[in-house]
Structure formats: structure tokens, C-alpha cells
């Protein structure tokens, strides 16, 4: 028997402060009295963004929002709304925020309850290939409002006031960037959307474009109006064919409806967007390398200053932002900067999309307000570590980020706090690691990626990452030397501080942060030649336990003849001959071989 109603109570800090906890208890009690416990589901959600009118309670279906609800009102709401289907008008409030749409539609609040979907407001709700769907959810109203009622400088002021920071990873204040580009005088200016998204395993931008391409287009149009550009480029990696297809359709549809092209919606503003495809280089996500790539040159970064806002693509002032930043813009315009800056922490406003992956029950794409703790993400939204394993580390920011150990779980997410903890926000990758993960191997994994993707221009990154990788590989193969950790730290700090671009400057982060938080693992690898997570195969010892029934399967596959024993009795591995290939471990059907 499924529930007929769901009541969602806001569990955000402001509503909690206004005593929303008592509401939950009161509702449960009331439902029990009426025998409705089976028919109504109670959910707790994170901050719903309507703090001024809290405590907030939403009743679905019908999406009725009640504000200022106290425990005393509960009985009335249950009797009138739930039982008699008549909403209580004195408590109901009207809120038509873009971001709350998912509460009307989504069923599983357990996952979405603590999220606040601004960028992903339409993902999973509308058909991304239908401009009608986008229009029906107030699409292009932000652009229309800007063209009707706001001057370019008004738009920039609004974005500045909202406190939006670049979501590509660096977190540069978006309003300031728009201001710097707008104040340049030039015959031509450009707007670029960075959809290269090279972080392995990151797909925030892909999902945004595949789920709601028009939001990016609308954001870029507003940006073009604000800085005085007539042409925009979307630089998207060629490995996203579906996103490219949907983007192409969206642009064509927008042109048809008059939202792109000459004299948009009858105004004096003309704007066009061209798609440019990447060709498989991670470094082309760096803004100056991206610009060179669009110009037809090799995708290599250049020193800054001059910054792209002064001298960008084709040497003209260019405004370049990440997909997520652009997708935030229509909401900032329509729902207002005042509201936007009420979400998040003091220095990091708004929400962030994260791709939660790794050893966690609920993997997926989440969008949470800044300020939520890592613990909340992993245990509340993510559902915790599966198979009863112990949490070991959280890797944030992709190959440019760091690994945070358990002591950082109560860090509140924002740009500065993550940087202080030794990692970075990055573009939003979040990988959960449990006790079966070897931190040295993880560092090596990420460094392999950045070493491979280095553009090769500057010596510290090109040569330095290779040397760091050589040292790490030796360590995982059991050939670590005493001064390896010192060398890694010396090289790491050099590459961080001397590299030309962000790729090099952040490439040593996984190594340095794991050295800081998990130094003992490195020391074990080097001095004791042991890998406690039993991952580095060269460091594993194999032993046959008493479970052995003497089937000789392992003896048959051992390439060095290190296993001896007669049939039906316990076999033995000669450690001096064992080359740690693991073939016996794979062959044993009785789980008798232990890895040590």
C-alpha cells in the first residue's frame, strides 16, 4: 500500500533554530491518533531556501508550502489538509522558486532531501530535447527580464551581490570577472563556456548539458549582454556525443524561437553561439589553453597576465566560465541575489554539484548548499560505506585535489575550508575510499593521469610529474628508498609553486595530501615493504591457512614451484621462491590462501 501523502519538514539550520524538531514528533503523534501512519510519509530535508518564512513544511502531492508552522498547527493541518483535502490557507505561502520544482515531482526524498537543486533544477524533470518543456518551467524568462528591465551594469551588480564564485574549480568571484571584462573597450568581445570537463570520473557538466542544455545557453546570453559580447563559444569535449547532440538541438531550437541570433526578442541585443569540440586533452580545460585551442593553435597555456578578460580569444576581451556557473545565472536573475546569497557560507554562496562515487551505498550526482558537512554528504545522502567497511578517506577535486582523512569529516564544504584542509573543491569529484584502499596507490593513480596529460610546455610539470611517478611506482613495487618521501615532498612543493598553469600547480596535490594525512602508509611501504590495504601486489605475502584441504590446485598454477605439499594435506608456500603473482590466490576455491 503506497503512501498517499508525504510531508517534508525542513531540517536546515534556520528552521531547526525555529524549533522544527518538535514538528516531526507532533506530526507522528497526530498521525498515530488518526490511524494514518501508513498513509503519510514524513521526510526530513536539508535547507529548502525559504529560511525567512520558516519553519517550512511541504505537503505533496500538490506542493503546498506551509510557513511558520508550529507544533500547535499540526493538528489543524492534518485534519484539514490530509484528511479533508482542504489546505490551510492561513499558513500556506506562495513560493515559485525555480529550484524547488523537484520537490513537486521527486519521490525519493531520502536521497534528495538534503540537496538543494539549483543548477540541476530541471535535470530529471523535463525533456532536455524539448524547448517547450524548458519554456514551461520559466525558461528564458531571466533573459527576457534582463533585456526588458536591466542595464548591463545592473546585471553585473546583481551577479556580484549574489556572491557567485566560478564553479570550474578556482572559485574566482564571477561578478568581478564580468565586471573586468565589461569595462574593457573593444570592437569585439567573446563569451566562452568551458565544457571540457577533463577530470576522470567527473560528469557534473555532462549531466547538466544532457539534462538541461537551455539553462547554459540562457546563462551565456545573459553574460553576453552584461559584458557586451555578440558571440559565444561552447568548448565541449568530443567524448560527450549525446551532450553535443542535445546542445546542437537546443541551439537550433533557441534560434527558431528567437532566443538566439539577431535582435533577440525584439531588443537591440544580438547573440550567437558556436560549438567547438575538444580533442582529448585534459589541459584544454585550462582557460588559456582552451582559448588557444579555439584559435586553432596547440592547446598550451600561457602566462597570465594578461588575463582573458583583457586579452582572450583572438586577442579580444573574453569572458570564460564553467558550465555550472552559467547554469546558475538564470536563477540568480529570477530568484534574486538576496535570496542566492542566503544560501551557503559567508565566502562561498550558493550550491555545488558533486559526483559522489567510490565505496559508498548511494553513488550519484548531488547538489548541496555550501556549508554542508562532509559527514552529512557521506552518511546522510550517500548512505554510508557498504559491506560494513570502515571509512578511510574522501578524495575531492579529481586529480587536482587531495585526500581528506576521518578527522576532516566535520569540515563544512566551501572553497576556503577545503583548501585549508589540504584539498580543493575542484570541479566537484568526490570519491569515497574505505579501508581496502591503498593511499599510495591512489596517489599514483591520480599522478599517472596528470603526468600523461601534462602539455609539456614547462619543465617542472613535464619532467617533475614524471619523476614523482617514477618514485611512487618504485614504492608500490617494493623498491622504496629511505629518502623517497623527502624527494616526493621536495619535488611536490617545487611543481606546485613553479608550474605555469593550474594543471601543474595542482598535480602534486594527491601525493602531498596523502603524505600529510597517511604518512604511516608510505613509511610501511618503504621500510617494512608492506601494503596494509593489500592492494600493491608486489608487497603482498601469501600464506596457506588451515582451511586447506590439499586439492593441489594452487600448486599446479604456481609459476615458480614455490608451493609444496602432498594431496589431501595442507600445502606450504616457500616465501623465498614466491614472486607474489597471486595466481594461487585466484586458484584456491576454499579461501584457504591468506594475503598478508
Amino acid at each position, binding site marked *: 500500500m*503506497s*503512501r*498517499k*501523502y*508525504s510531508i517534508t519538514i525542513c531540517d536546515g539550520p534556520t528552521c531547526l533554530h525555529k524549533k522544527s524538531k518538535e514538528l516531526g514528533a507532533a506530526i507522528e503523534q497526530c498521525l498515530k491518533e488518526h490511524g494514518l501512519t501508513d498513509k503519510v510519509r514524513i521526510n526530513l530535508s536539508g535547507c529548502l531556501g525559504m529560511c525567512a518564512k520558516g519553519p517550512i513544511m511541504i505537503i*505533496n*502531492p*500538490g506542493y503546498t508550502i506551509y510557513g511558520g508552522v508550529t507544533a500547535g498547527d499540526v493538528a489543524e493541518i492534518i485534519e484539514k489538509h490530509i484528511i479533508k483535502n482542504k489546505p490551510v490557507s492561513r499558513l500556506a505561502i506562495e513560493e515559485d522558486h525555480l529550484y524547488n520544482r523537484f520537490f513537486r*515531482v*521527486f*519521490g*525519493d526524498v*531520502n*536521497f*534528495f532531501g538534503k540537496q538543494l537543486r539549483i543548477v*540541476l533544477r*530541471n*535535470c*530529471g*524533470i*523535463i*525533456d*532536455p*530535447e*524539448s*524547448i*517547450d*518543456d524548458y*519554456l*514551461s518551467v*520559466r*525558461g*528564458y*524568462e531571466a*533573459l*527576457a*527580464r534582463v*533585456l*526588458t528591465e536591466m542595464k548591463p551594469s545592473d546585471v553585473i551588480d546583481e551577479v556580484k551581490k549574489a556572491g557567485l564564485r566560478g564553479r570550474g574549480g578556482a572559485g574566482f568571484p564571477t561578478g568581478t570577472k564580468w565586471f573586468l571584462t565589461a569595462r574593457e573597450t573593444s570592437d569585439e568581445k567573446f563569451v566562452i563556456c568551458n565544457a571540457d570537463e577533463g577530470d576522470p570520473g567527473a*560528469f557534473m557538466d*555532462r*549531466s547538466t548539458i*544532457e*539534462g*538541461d542544455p537551455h539553462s547554459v545557453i540562457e546563462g551565456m546570453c545573459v553574460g553576453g549582454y552584461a559584458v557586451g559580447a555578440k558571440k559565444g563559444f561552447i568548448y565541449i569535449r568530443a567524448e*560527450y556525443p*549525446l*551532450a553535443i547532440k542535445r546542445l546542437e538541438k537546443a541551439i537550433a531550437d533557441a534560434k527558431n*524561437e528567437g532566443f538566439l541570433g539577431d535582435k*533577440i*526578442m*525584439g*531588443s537591440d541585443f544580438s547573440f550567437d553561439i558556436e560549438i567547438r569540440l575538444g580533442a582529448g586533452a585534459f589541459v584544454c580545460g585550462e582557460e588559456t589553453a582552451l582559448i588557444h585551442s579555439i584559435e586553432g593553435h596547440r592547446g598550451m597555456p600561457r602566462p597570465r597576465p594578461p588575463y582573458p578578460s583583457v586579452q582572450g580569444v583572438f586577442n579580444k576581451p573574453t569572458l570564460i566560465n564553467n558550465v555550472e556557473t552559467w547554469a546558475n545565472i538564470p536563477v540568480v536573475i529570477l530568484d534574486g541575489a538576496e535570496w542566492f546569497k542566503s544560501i551557503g557560507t559567508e565566502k562561498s554562496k550558493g550550491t555545488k554539484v558533486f559526483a559522489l*562515487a567510490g565505496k559508498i*551505498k*548511494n*553513488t*550519484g*550526482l*548531488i547538489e548541496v548548499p555550501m556549508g554542508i558537512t562532509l559527514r552529512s554528504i557521506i552518511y546522510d545522502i550517500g548512505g554510508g560505506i557498504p559491506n560494513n567497511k570502515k571509512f578511510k578517506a574522501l578524495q575531492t577535486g579529481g586529480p587536482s585535489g587531495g585526500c581528506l582523512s576521518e578527522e576532516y569529516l566535520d569540515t563544512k564544504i566551501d572553497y576556503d575550508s577545503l583548501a585549508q584542509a589540504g584539498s580543493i573543491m575542484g570541479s566537484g569529484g568526490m570519491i569515497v575510499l574505505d579501508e581496502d584502499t591503498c593511499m599510495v596507490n591512489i596517489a599514483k593513480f591520480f599522478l599517472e593521469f596528470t603526468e600523461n596529460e601534462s602539455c609539456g610546455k614547462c619543465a617542472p610539470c613535464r619532467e617533475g610529474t614524471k619523476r614523482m611517478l617514477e618514485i611512487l611506482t618504485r614504492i608500490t613495487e617494493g623498491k622504496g628508498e629511505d629518502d623517497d618521501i623527502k624527494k616526493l615532498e621536495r619535488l611536490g612543493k617545487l611543481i606546485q609553486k613553479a608550474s605555469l598553469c593550474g594543471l601543474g600547480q595542482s598535480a602534486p596535490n594527491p601525493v602531498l595530501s596523502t603524505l600529510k594525512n597517511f604518512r604511516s602508509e608510505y613509511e610501511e611501504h618503504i621500510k617494512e615493504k608492506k601494503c596494509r590495504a593489500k592492494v600493491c601486489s608486489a608487497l603482498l605475502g601469501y600464506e596457506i591457512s588451515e582451511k586447506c584441504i590439499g586439492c593441489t590446485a594452487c600448486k599446479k598454477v604456481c609459476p615458480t614451484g614455490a608451493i609444496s605439499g602432498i594431496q589431501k594435506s595442507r600445502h606450504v608456500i616457500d616465501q623465498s621462491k614466491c614472486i607474489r603473482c597471486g595466481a594461487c590466490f585466484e586458484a584456491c576455491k576454499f579461501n584457504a590462501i591468506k594475503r598478508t
Partner: protein
Amino acid sequence: MLTPLEIVKKKRAEAINRIVGKGYLSTKRVYVGMATCEIAAGSKDVMEVFQTAIKNGLTDVYLSQKGCAGRCNLEPTVEVVEEGCIPVKYGRVSRDMAHQIIERHLKKGEIIEEWVIR
């Protein structure tokens, strides 16, 4: 001359009309997730099942696709929404399950609890 704001409001009204005209409010709305990750998990097959059923005469259903729903380990997802009811989200939907959803939920109104994502 209409202002851009007036133009967009007019376009929105027209769009909503078109959507409602296709039965958005009056039917069961079925959304199949069609992002790259969903397709990799097999949602194209699931979509085909629904499309074939409609071609073969299944009425009262508004079939649409949606973008990434964010539930990576539970893909493919299918959502069935009726105006006035809490939406029902099915996870890990296979071809067989899709057939069952058509028979049991769409035709008979039975919500298949074991497959619902809570």
C-alpha cells in the same frame, strides 16, 4: 511592440498549452532517464518497450525522456507521475520489469513496491 518579458510569457503559455494538449495533466506521465549513464545501463531498451506499447495501442500515457536523475547506482530509472499523487520512481529497470510496469502499474494502477526507490 511587446517587451521581451511579455514575449516570453506568451511563448510560455503557448508551450504549456501544447504540453497539456498532449495529455500532460490528464494522463499517467512516464519518464525514462536518457542520459549517457542511463543509456549505458540499458535505458534505451526500456524506452523501446514503452514506445512499442504505445504504438500497439497503450493509451492514456504521456511518455517522455528526462536527463540525469542523479541516482547513478540505480539506473535505468523510470518515473511514473500522476497529477495529484506522489511520483513513483522505479530503479534498475530491465526490459521485463518495464513490461510489468506497463501491465501492473499503467494498466491496473498497482504500484510495484519492491522496485520503488525510497
